[in-house]
């Protein structure tokens, strides 16, 4: 029984990890683009971007999942997500990427805007280009400042992936819960908690390591 549960949960956890990693792969860079948009002096670009961030951060991720999955089918009368598990997974991924990109963008914006203007000016009077100033002077300082809030957000993402079940994307809790019905046992649910704990523990160690690697400067 234990082996059976373990294998089933591992299968579910694979779905969780897949959603987790793909969300990061797309949301981390997309968030940077959004943050640039939200910092543009050009108001016709800045305000729409800020509006979108407000909508996404101001509504529950679960609601966004439902709307993104069911919305196109009901409004446009066609299922753009494709059929079956694959289609639902893609819809969930899109919802997660948009949601997390908006959160990341605000963290990036805070990090970039916290760098003193004197750092830019020092680069300018040394004849550096804008690109050189960003890459050689600003970027590492921003990374150092955003590691703690980003790691917070990423650990939240590990657990948020469980929300994908509202559009029937199989993930680990879904699998754990199935044993209540099929075998009348609750311990597989506790077992799923262990998966989350171990995984977020590993991430905590990783981010601690990154923070230590960046502690050589202030």
């Amino acid at each position, binding site marked *: 029984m234990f082996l059976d549960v373990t294998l089933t949960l591992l299968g579910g956890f694979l779905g969780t990890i897949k959603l987790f990693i793909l969300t990061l792969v797309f949301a981390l860079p997309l968030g940077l683009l959004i943050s640039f948009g939200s910092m543009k002096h050009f108001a016709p670009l800045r305000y729409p971007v800020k509006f979108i961030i407000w909508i996404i951060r101001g509504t529950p991720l679960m609601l966004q999942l439902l709307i993104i999955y069911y919305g196109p089918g009901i409004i446009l009368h066609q299922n753009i997500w494709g059929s079956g598990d694959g289609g639902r997974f893609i819809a969930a991924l899109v919802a997660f990427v948009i949601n997390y990109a908006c959160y990341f963008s605000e963290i990036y914006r805070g990090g970039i805007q916290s760098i003193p203007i*004197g750092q830019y000016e020092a680069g300018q009077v040394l004849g550096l*280009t804008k690109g050189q100033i960003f890459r050689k002077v600003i970027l590492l300082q921003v990374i150092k400042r955003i590691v703690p809030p980003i790691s917070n957000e990423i650990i939240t993402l590990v657990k948020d992936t469980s929300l994908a079940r509202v559009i029937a994307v199989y993930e680990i809790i879904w699998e754990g819960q199935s044993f209540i019905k099929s075998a009348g046992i609750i311990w597989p649910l506790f077992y799923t908690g262990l998966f989350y704990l171990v995984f977020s523990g590993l991430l905590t160690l990783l981010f601690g390591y990154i923070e230590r690697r960046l502690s050589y400067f202030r």
Partner: protein
Amino acid sequence: MDILEVKNIRKKFDRTEVLKDISFTMQEGQAVSIIGSSGSGKTTLLRCLNFLEMPDEGVIRVKDETLFDSAAPGSRSEAEIRKKRLHFGLVFQSFNLFPQYTAIENVMLAPQMMNEEGHRRDSGEVRRHAQELLEKMGLQNRMDNYPHQLSGGQQQRVAIARALALQPDILCFDEPTSALDPELTGEVLRVIRELAEQKTTMIIVTHEMSFARDVADHVIFMDGGVIAEQGTPQEVFDHPREERTRQFLSRF
């Protein structure tokens, strides 16, 4: 020959006129001190020379090359402005060292970037030059320290070496000792004095009156966005012609 000619510079922020018709010249090898109370426009003037601010009106010429002329606005592309900036170096009040680089890396960064853009200088030479500059600043034992491991006075000396690394025609100091504890100002002033003795062309905005008097060949007193008085240190400090100069100096 005048190395720098500044003519009729005006600068407004919103409605406040910060610089009202500033004109002066300086010769190669001269040290010019700019004194005056806060808000008199000294820092804005330096920032205009370094193109951190664009003047609204006026002309800036270095070695007979017109860098800025409001009557004939040429290209103001980033590349153009960068090239013009290189005539000037600027040492900030708050140092603005790059915290993630060691002292020597701070000095080497800009020359290395120039290299990447094809102005080839071999990297060994860039390093040797940076070492030389830091030794000149008395920092031979501090080259591999990060800024947060250095005192304010040491940080400011690294910043001076960094500004010198690109061999600017004119080195500008914006209140270089104002952010320092009193016991640390001496080491920075000593370095600037040595540069003056070696005939480095410099503009020094400062609140250190005795220093301004010792080190400068020419003193400019600014008040309310205009040059109220200028001349040799003896003229300005010992025999000021203007009442407001006298009032300002009497506070020290």
